[in-house]
């Protein structure tokens, strides 16, 4: 990312593209984008990444988290007829973050992301599935509940437990 932000490095961009574009496409498809639209929006997401590389902040949760948010927003903007919101409108933070992230920060954030992915796989299937349903398909907890024929309260509890479990797994990992 630093290479893109500072030197507009196309080789670095191609590397990121190879790694993340297919995942972005899968995300868009899971949220209901038709094949053609998913293909085109994936390019758009990657273009946002290129254009806004300088805004990337590794401390905020890493590149995959950023791409996750951009792809979600690009799709919704398309669905709304591309009005109002900026395609990469981040989650609001109280303090605007400054400066291009250093290589070290990016490495730390990548490591954190990797650890989180490992922990995610360790969750009980019922907990992981519900997180995936919400995060990946963008379904409300009410929709998750309806689909599973569970009371909303049960789904909320399951989500809370899943997130709590994830935090504990991360903590155990960090303490090691």
């Amino acid at each position, binding site marked *: 990312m630093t290479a893109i932000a500072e030197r507009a490095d196309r080789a670095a961009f191609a590397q990121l593209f190879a790694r993340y574009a297919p995942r972005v496409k899968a995300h868009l498809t899971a949220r209901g984008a038709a094949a053609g639209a998913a293909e085109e929006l994936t390019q758009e997401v990657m273009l946002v990444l290129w254009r806004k590389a300088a805004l990337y902040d590794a401390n905020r*949760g890493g590149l*995959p988290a950023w791409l996750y948010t951009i792809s979600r927003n690009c799709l919704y903007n398309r669905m709304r007829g591309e009005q109002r919101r900026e395609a990469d409108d981040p989650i609001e933070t109280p303090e605007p973050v400054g400066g291009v992230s250093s290589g070290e920060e990016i490495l730390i954030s990548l490591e954190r992301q990797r650890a989180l992915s490992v922990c995610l796989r360790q969750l009980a299937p019922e907990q992981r599935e519900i*997180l995936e349903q919400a995060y990946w398909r963008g379904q409300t907890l009410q929709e998750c509940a309806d689909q599973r024929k569970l009371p909303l309260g049960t789904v909320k509890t399951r989500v809370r437990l899943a997130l709590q479990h994830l935090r504990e797994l991360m903590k155990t990992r960090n303490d090691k």
Partner: protein
Amino acid sequence: MRSSPRTPVTIAAPNHHVPEEGLLEYVAGAATDPASLAIACHVSLCAACAAQAAALEAVGGSILETSPGESLADGALQATLARLDAAPEPAAVARDVVVEAPGFLSAFGLPSPLLRSLPAQVADWRFVVPGVRAIDLPVVSSGATARLISFGGGVTIPLHDHGGTEYVVVFAGALDEKAEGKRFGRGDISIRETGERHEQRATPGEPCIALVVNEGKLRPLTLRGRLLLALAR
């Protein structure tokens, strides 16, 4: 319109937050637009919820990271690189687009998600009933409404129920929940589900400026609910 000097948005230390599963729906893009606006306003005034939202985004990132992916059409990278040529170089992009509050709203420290949602060219409040003024926010969502409301100090919002979830985020002044003895000040968010009846009162002495989002129609339960009916128009 946005030419007045920028009022620094002070971070409050809110006492009333968004529950974690609500933040998750927000981060996952599952919340409705008006609900997202309310949550974004709270998050931008609440360091704790902002940190939590960032952590939840990281979980979204991990789910993306662990996805097997879906292969792209041949030549997708080349097509994207060709589009890059038409795009500005990365460094040319401005870092922050600061949205200024219009003059008549500049004293309230409104957070940027709210400022970005104001109708273009808004110049004044709309009179609702004595003591209550509003600005309708053009947030698209079926059946839901979002308004910035100014309650005069001491104004009571009579007992009411909601047809859908109600979100209130306070920016200036305070609202008291009568029955529970709870006070909602700057940055606090109140989320009420259908069936949760309540009566609120703006703290006397200063106006209360708040975002009020209703995902369904209000149901006034008293004759004094006239005021609410006017609001729910």
